[in-house]
C-alpha cells in the first residue's frame, strides 16, 4: 500500500462540501483523545511513548500497523481499530503539527 503523505492528508482536509447535520471530527479534536495519555504537546510524563517530533506519515503508518496487527503494543491495537484511514491521517497530521487547526 502507498503511504499517504502529509501533503495528501492536508489536501484531503481542504476539500469542502456541505453536509447535513454535524461535520466530522477535526484532526485537532480527535488528537485531544490521544493527549489524555500522550500529553497535549505529545510529551507525556513517564513511560508512555513521546510523539513530539515525529512526522505525520510516520505516525499514520504506526497507527495503521497497530490497527492491522503488524506492530505489537499493549492498548494501541485496540484503539487504532476504531479509526478510519481518513481519521488516522487527520489525527496524525494534528499530532505532528500541535496547535494547528483549532
Amino acid at each position, binding site marked *: 500500500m502507498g503511504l499517504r503523505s502529509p501533503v495528501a492528508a492536508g489536501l484531503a482536509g481542504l476539500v469542502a462540501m456541505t453536509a447535513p447535520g454535524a461535520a466530522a471530527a477535526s484532526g485537532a479534536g480527535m488528537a485531544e483523545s490521544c493527549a489524555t495519555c500522550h500529553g497535549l504537546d505529545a510529551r507525556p510524563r513517564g513511560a508512555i511513548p513521546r510523539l513530539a517530533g515525529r512526522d505525520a506519515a510516520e505516525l499514520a503508518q504506526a497507527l495503521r500497523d497497530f490497527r492491522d496487527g503488524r506492530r505489537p503494543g499493549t492498548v494501541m491495537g485496540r484503539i487504532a481499530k476504531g479509526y478510519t484511514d*481518513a481519521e488516522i491521517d487527520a489525527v496524525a497530521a494534528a499530532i505532528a503539527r500541535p496547535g494547528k487547526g483549532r
Partner: protein
Amino acid sequence: MNRRELVAGVAAAAASGRAARAAVAPRVVIVGGGYGGASVARALRRIAPQVRVTLVERQAPFISCPRSNGVIGGLAEMGEITFGDAGLREAGIGVVRGEAAEIDPAKRQVRLAGGRRLEYDRLVLSPGVDFIWNGVEGYDEAASAAMPHAWKAGPQTLLLRDQLRAMPDGGLVVIAAPADPYRCPPGPYERACLIAGYLKREKPRSKILILDAKDSFSKQPLFQEAWTTLYPGMVEWVPASRAGRVRSVRAGEGVVSTDFDDHRPAVANIIPPQRAGAIATKAGLAEATGFCRVDPVTFESKVAPGVHLVGDAIMPGDMPKSAFSANTQGKACAYALAAIFRGETPAEPVLLNTCYSLAAADYGFTVAGVYKPLDGALRLVKGSGGISPVGADAGTHALEAQYGRSWFDTLTAELYG
C-alpha cells in the same frame, strides 16, 4: 473518498473564517472541578481564550479517585492524589469556592449556597455521582463512618486504609459492589487486588469476600486471573445469582447481610448505588436511571437548553464512567461550545476511553474503546476496544502498570499542574 473524509473538510474550511466572527466574551460557568469540569475549563482556555470561564468547586483541594485504591492498598500516599487549584487559576480560570445550590436555565443563572448568583451563556455541570443512601438498607452517611464506601476519595479513603491497618491477621474484609451503572466499573475489583496485596504482605491469613449485586463485571477474566495467580485462596467473589447482593447492613453491630447470610467482617467496604450529583438531580436533568441524557455531539442536556453535562453524571451510551471518559467528554464539550460561540455547527467527536487497573504495583491491564455519535448516543465503534489479553506475560503487565502511572501523571499535570 467516503462521506466522512469529505465531511472532514468542512471543519478545516470553516477554520479559516473563524477569527472574523469573534463575539463579545461569552461566559461559561462550570460546576465541578474534578476530571470532567477541569477538562472543560482547561480546553476552553486553550481553544477559545476569549471565553470567560468560571469554575465552581466546593472541595479544596481536589482528591483523585483514580489511584485512591493505591492509597488504600499502601502503594501510594494521599499527597500523590491531592491537587490544589493554583494551576487552574494561573490558566485564567475564575475559580469560585462554593456549592452550586440551584440552577435557573430560563434566566441562565446558577445560585450558590451563600446566595451569590452567577450568570452564564452556557452552563456545564460535572457534578459526579451522589450516593443513594439506604439503597442498601441501613447504609446511610452515618453508617459510612463505621463501614466506609471510600468511593469519593478523601477522608473515606484514609478511613478504609486505617481500618485495614488496624485489623488482625486472619480477618475478613467484605467489599460490597453495586449493580450497574456506577462510577469506575473495574474499581471494586482493582480494590480487592490491592487490598489483597497489602494483606499478603502484612496479614497473610486474611481473606476478602466480594459480595456483588451483579453477575459479571468489567475486565472480569483479567481480575479473576490475577486473583488466582497473585492471591491464591485470598479473594472470593459471590455474584448476585448466588445471593451476593448485600441487602442491608447494621453498621453499629458490624453486620453485612445478603438474602442468606449475615457476615461480621473485620472490615466492611460498602460501595452504595449511585446517581447523578445532587445539582443535576435537583434540576430535574436525570432520567429514571438516575443519570442524565445528553446530546452526543454537544453534551447539552436533553431537558434543559444551554445546560451541558459531562462525566460520571451522564448516561452517554456505551462509554463507562471513568476519569478518562470525563476528560475526553470534557474536551469534546469544550470544542462544541467553541463552535457554538463562533456560530458554527459543532463537529462530531470521536471519543476514547482507556481504563487502567492495577492488580499489583507492577501488574496492570486495560479496557479501551473508541466511541462515536450514533442515533443520539455515543456508541462503541465496531471492532474497536476490549480488554488486555488474558495470559499475558509479566513484561506486558509491568508495561501496562507503568503506562497507567504515566497516564495519571500526564493528565493530572495538565489539569491541575
